């Protein structure tokens, strides 16, 4: 299921390559680790009614793996393309970023075709007196002329296929954002925050097909991406004191506990009365599309505590037990696509076998196993082609990487 050749772009870069070329700004393995974990969580969440997904963070707070993914992607993109922009200029770095956006687009179209195949199959076997209403989702198969074009324009996005379009738009805007981040980082962050506020206040979003707007509003979610990028180009040193502060840690813990309590009242409606009305009026609705402040703060609280307990160069990062997640995080585009594909496949298996919790556990474990195996294979290919540890990127690698 390798759609794209692995190129030494930020998302698929191997850690040793970075460590070997630039010792002071070596790649932070923590990013790979947590992105790998985020990819597993996204996979588990994408399998419908998967009993294993009760472990995923979205069940215990406001934010979920999407925040992790966008934040870390922003951090890594700034780290890698930032150096390219410093060393080789705006044009070269910008061109690389746009090439990456194209790769993500191709990956999205591939996944869309997989989705079409699955939904077409399900629609043939879906006669139901109970679900006459749900049958209407197959309507779009009746007018492929419109639907396929809208899909290529990224306006028609089936369920669970919203992350890559968001990432494409974020990458398209990134050359300009990075240019400013390298010159006036604080100004860039402030501009991003301003756009976030404006988009939320005036409800700016990109229209979707057949109606509504994007499920992940890029104008709002760019803020988290830029926060990551700002930290990736040196912001971490500026806020080091803040991260070490006990007050901040205590506030973060308090907020996480609060979020946990609120989320529990969703699962146990009979305790819903414990949430006072005025509080409900303030916090609801928690708007995922526009990256609600409640979600953003929840993620930042998680991040602050994570950085506190998992410091840079944490010795345990070399433990074999973390190796699989790190491997997956280092090939995140491929593994993300594989995860979506496997979630489809897992759903398929469940529909056909209609098994219980054991089957769900088996599907989840098999899927994560497949993700690890493919990530390992991708690293192996990289090493094979001389782009592994220590090897500098050859001009041909970029050319080859563009071919699909």
């Amino acid at each position: 299921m390798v759609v794209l050749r692995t190129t030494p772009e930020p998302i698929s870069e191997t850690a040793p390559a970075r460590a070997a070329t630039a010792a002071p700004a070596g790649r932070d393995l923590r990013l790979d680790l947590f992105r790998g974990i985020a990819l597993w969580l996204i996979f588990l969440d994408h399998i419908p009614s998967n009993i294993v997904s009760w472990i995923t963070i979205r069940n215990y707070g406001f934010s979920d793996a999407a925040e992790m993914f966008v934040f870390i992607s922003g951090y890594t993109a700034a780290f890698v393309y930032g150096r390219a922009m410093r060393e080789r200029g705006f044009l070269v770095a910008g061109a690389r970023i746009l090439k990456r956006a194209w790769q993500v687009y191709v990956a999205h179209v591939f996944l869309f075709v997989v989705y079409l195949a699955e939904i077409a199959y399900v629609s043939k076997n879906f006669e139901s007196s109970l679900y006459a209403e749900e049958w209407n989702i197959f309507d779009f198969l009746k007018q492929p002329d419109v639907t396929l074009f809208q899909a290529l324009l990224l306006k028609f996005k089936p369920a669970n296929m919203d992350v890559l379009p968001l990432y494409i738009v974020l990458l398209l805007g990134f050359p300009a954002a990075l240019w400013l981040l390298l010159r006036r980082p604080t100004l860039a962050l402030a501009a991003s925050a301003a756009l976030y506020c404006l988009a939320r206040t005036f409800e700016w979003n990109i229209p979707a097909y057949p109606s509504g707007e994007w499920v992940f509003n890029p104008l709002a979610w760019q803020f988290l991406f830029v926060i990551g990028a700002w930290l990736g180009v040196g912001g971490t040193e500026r806020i080091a004191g803040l991260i070490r502060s006990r007050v901040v840690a205590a506030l973060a813990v308090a907020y996480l506990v609060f979020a946990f309590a609120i989320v529990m009242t969703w699962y146990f409606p009979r305790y819903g009365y414990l949430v006072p009305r005025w509080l409900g009026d303030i916090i609801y609705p928690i708007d995922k599309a526009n990256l609600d402040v409640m979600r953003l703060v929840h993620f930042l609280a998680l991040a602050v505590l994570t950085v506190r307990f998992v410091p840079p160069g944490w010795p345990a990062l070399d433990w074999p037990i973390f190796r699989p997640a790190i491997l997956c995080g280092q090939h995140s585009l491929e593994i993300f696509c594989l995860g979506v594909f496997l979630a489809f496949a897992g759903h398929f298996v469940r529909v056909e076998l209609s098994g219980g919790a054991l089957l769900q556990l088996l599907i989840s474990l098999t899927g994560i196993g497949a993700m690890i195996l493919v990530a390992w294979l991708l690293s192996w290919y990289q090493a094979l082609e001389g782009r592994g540890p220590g090897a500098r990127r050859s001009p041909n690698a970029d050319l080859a990487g563009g071919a699909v």
Partner: protein
Amino acid sequence: MRVLPLILAALVPLGPALATEDTCEAGTGLVPAEATLPRAAAALGERHSLDIVVLGTGSSALPGPAGDRAAYPARLQAALGQLLPGIALKVVPDIKARQTAAEMMEQEWQRIAEQRPALVIWQSGTVDAIKGVDPDEFRATLNQGVEMLQAQGVDVVLMNMQYSPRTDAMISIDAYADNMRWVALQHDVPLFDRFALMKHWTETGTFDLYDAGKNTDTAERVHDCIGRLLAGLIAAAVKQAPAAETR
């Protein structure tokens, strides 16, 4: 939403639950027990009558000649008649397939205002999710609808979408389900969480909803359970309401 079945499975004392013949009991923990319906309770107290309108889309009905009698509005009437004996009870289904919440409001509100029922069960969400209506607009419609009904002295129970394992990954319902919950919270309106119930039944093996397609019997039993649990919610709520007022 997904952690729930596990915890519930641990909480529900298995022995007695298995001993009873009533399969619907497996879902009672998911139905709000402390709901109040003060307007419906007042109508019951003053007129000894309870007029209910079920405002819904395709999933509030079953096809076929026996569909009307087997669908949950009819089952609700039967079950509620037993729980509240001696009451003039009327359940009127007002089903319009493929209508979004906004379309439903536009077309049916006038009629409901004329009928002046004591209670409206408003089933919605699936069509909006399939058509991709902006969740904010969906919430605004629900808010407006609930406020209008309450202003006219009509109580509301919101009912969310069905759980459909085959199409689960294909319809993004989370945003719509969340918004329905928040509207319910904000207006003190009970939410009948059909989605969580049906999911719970699938996970505990009460009903095989993967196979429900070809099996009309399963469909009818699911509707029967929904009708009975809904009746339990309404009966408890109209009995609790006066006590809640004096408090």
